């Protein structure tokens, strides 16, 4: 605990130094672009920041408020409830955290405003994975599903759709992303698991589960069917009707044969299924795996040879924001890229859009564990101070490069979504 405190103090000092430098440079070069915000006015500004509970976190808002001098009020709303708010009550929102698949869906509501990339001082440092859709070696990342790049750039400020190439105006400032896979109980399985095909292995009959979010659950299933060699999808992230039919029909057959124990919707349901031993292999989110481990129950976020199902999230601005509030929003977006934020979410297992800035706010041990896949040299502590892993433990799937470099599909919303959701409902009630 005391060590933790020290490192925070240290990093805070470092942060103040570096922000001073960055702000100085920014003002000097006109990067922030806002007319100087008067200190006395800025204190009166309150701006709400809304988004899913995994990204909009009170501790982050507190730290941002402290550093920036105005108040950021966090409000957690999951994507499925956020989307209708964006469409029906945009005036109740200011800054929003958008998962890219959700953005693909709601951008054309016209309730956002485009972001001027040139006012984001660190844009050029953002990892090519987010801003260019390129892998570490410069090759294209998997284009299956909603790759952040697909919904990042705009031809014009009032464009309905997205630009195919990089432009100066963007829909969101990317913040966090991760590579998801399946969670397993190694103690109850007792042998190596390497392939998505194991999800539908009759050996685990009655002990598997899928997430009941259609656009995510169907991807885990698709990965499994592909791994079993039963089908090769053109684009798992955007299936044709025939592909949807094939997938759902097979899922229904598996369900009738008793393959599934449950379909979960909330994070804690997946934790309980795993912790109680109801399920030994299932769709899972990284923090849920951690939560099971925190109860002293072995749980592995298993990397699979077929690759990962990735997702990303960024910050968007609602259309009605203007004047000082908009300036404040830009300051906040710039702040999320400056490092403290990256360090915080890094300790939750997510990746930052600018890893090198995040690194300045992580200890060598943390950086080695989370980003490099190295064995921990001392205990690994989450951002709230809970011990997550002991000395010598290693992150599943290895380094940042290995994990992110091995993405097979991105969380998605399909062209045939309506049909897919209808058929998914059929599967659930079969």
């Amino acid at each position, binding site marked *: 605990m005391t060590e933790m405190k020290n490192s925070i103090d240290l990093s805070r000092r470092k942060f103040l130094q570096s922000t001073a430098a960055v702000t100085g440079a920014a003002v000097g070069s006109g990067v922030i672009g806002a007319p100087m915000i008067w200190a006395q006015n800025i204190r009166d500004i309150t701006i709400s920041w809304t988004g899913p509970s995994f990204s909009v976190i009170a501790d982050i808002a507190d730290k941002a408020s402290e550093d920036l001098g105005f108040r950021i009020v966090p409000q957690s709303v999951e994507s499925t*409830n956020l989307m209708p708010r964006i469409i029906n009550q945009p005036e109740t929102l200011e800054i929003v955290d958008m998962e890219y698949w959700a953005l693909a869906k709601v951008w054309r509501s016209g309730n956002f405003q485009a972001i001027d990339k040139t006012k984001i001082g660190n844009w050029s440092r953002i990892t090519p994975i987010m801003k260019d859709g390129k892998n570490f070696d410069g090759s294209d990342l998997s284009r299956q599903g909603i790759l952040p790049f697909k919904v990042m750039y705009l031809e014009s400020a009032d464009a309905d759709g997205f630009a195919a190439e990089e432009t100066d105006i963007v829909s969101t400032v990317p913040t966090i992303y991760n590579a998801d896979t399946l969670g397993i109980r190694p103690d109850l399985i007792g042998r190596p698991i390497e392939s998505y095909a194991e999800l539908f292995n009759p050996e685990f009959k009655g002990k598997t589960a899928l997430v009941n979010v259609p656009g995510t659950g169907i991807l885990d299933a698709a990965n499994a069917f592909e791994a079993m060699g039963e089908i090769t999808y053109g684009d798992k992230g955007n299936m044709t009707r025939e592909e949807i039919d094939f997938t759902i029909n097979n899922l229904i057959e598996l369900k009738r044969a008793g393959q599934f124990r449950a379909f979960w*919707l909330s994070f804690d349901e997946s934790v309980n299924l795993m912790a109680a031993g109801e399920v030994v292999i299932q769709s899972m989110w990284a923090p849920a795996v951690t939560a099971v481990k925190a109860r002293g129950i072995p749980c592995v976020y298993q990397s699979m040879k077929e690759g990962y199902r990735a997702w990303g999230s960024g910050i968007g601005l609602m259309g009605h924001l203007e004047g000082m509030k908009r300036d404040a929003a830009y300051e906040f977006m710039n702040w999320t890229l400056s490092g403290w934020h990256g360090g915080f979410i890094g300790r939750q297992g997510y990746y930052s859009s600018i890893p090198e800035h995040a690194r300045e706010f992580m200890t060598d041990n943390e950086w080695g564990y989370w980003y490099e896949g190295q064995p921990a040299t001392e205990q690994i502590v989450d951002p709230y101070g809970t011990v997550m892993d002991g000395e010598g433990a290693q992150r599943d799937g290895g380094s940042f490069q290995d994990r992110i470099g091995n993405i097979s599909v991105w969380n998605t919303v399909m062209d045939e979504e309506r049909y897919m*959701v209808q058929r998914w409902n059929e599967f659930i009630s079969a």
Partner: protein
Amino acid sequence: MSSRSSGGSSGLSAYLQVAPLALFTIAFVGVPIGTLVLLSFWQTDGIFIYREFTLDNYRQMLSSPLTYALFFTTIKFAAITLIVTTIIGFICSYFLVFHVRNLKWQIGLLLLCTIPFWTSNVIRMISWIPFLGREGIFNQTIIAMGLTNQPLDFLLYSEFAVILTYIHLYTLFMIVPIFNSMAKINPNLIEAARDAGASGWQILYTVIIPLSKTGIALGSIFVVTLVMADFFVVRVMSGGQSASVVSAMKNQIDNLFYPQAAAMAIMLIAVVALLVSGILRVVDIRAELAR
């Protein structure tokens, strides 16, 4: 009603008397349902709603076998829950009214039935999970007793779990109205029946059950509407293995298909209204309550 009034001026005053309730009902029941009806005839592309008349939402719903499967499951849940809660509710009320003669004890025991309601529905529901699970208390107990060597899987994340939870959550809604109507039965009636030579069963069938009908009907309305409107219990206790009409509707809303959800809602209202009017056909609650 107005036919009973005599003279023009009292006609006006009758309207004025009805006005507050009528306005209230129109504002808080009529307008929302009206909106729902309109919405169910409009089009959407998943984001925008177009105010163009279409029958597509209904056509799609009525032509999908899924809709019938969902209604079948939901009605099945409602029917089983109704039967079991009626039996339990009747027995509990019978015991309270005819065996516990002391009024203080009656009220005390009835209050005892409400204790579970001091915590939230969700907590009462979730507390079943550690009890019924594979490694749960029940399975551990029967394995320890040597009754089985394999945990019983069907206890949790199954239709059994859903129905068990419904019964647990909603039995009180049966007990209270049945107790209320049973308590109104004049003890002299039962004595008269006994004097006339009726057996215990005959008294039950010919006196007590007919006179408890109002309570049973009221309780049935509660139970049926509660089960038909639920999506949370079915989702959590079946582990997402089952779906109800409302959980499918929730799925549509989550994916922003409001008009389709509205069409489904209208159909649900129609089915529930049909069920409730069926219950009311058996028992004239108004006449009985005035008794």
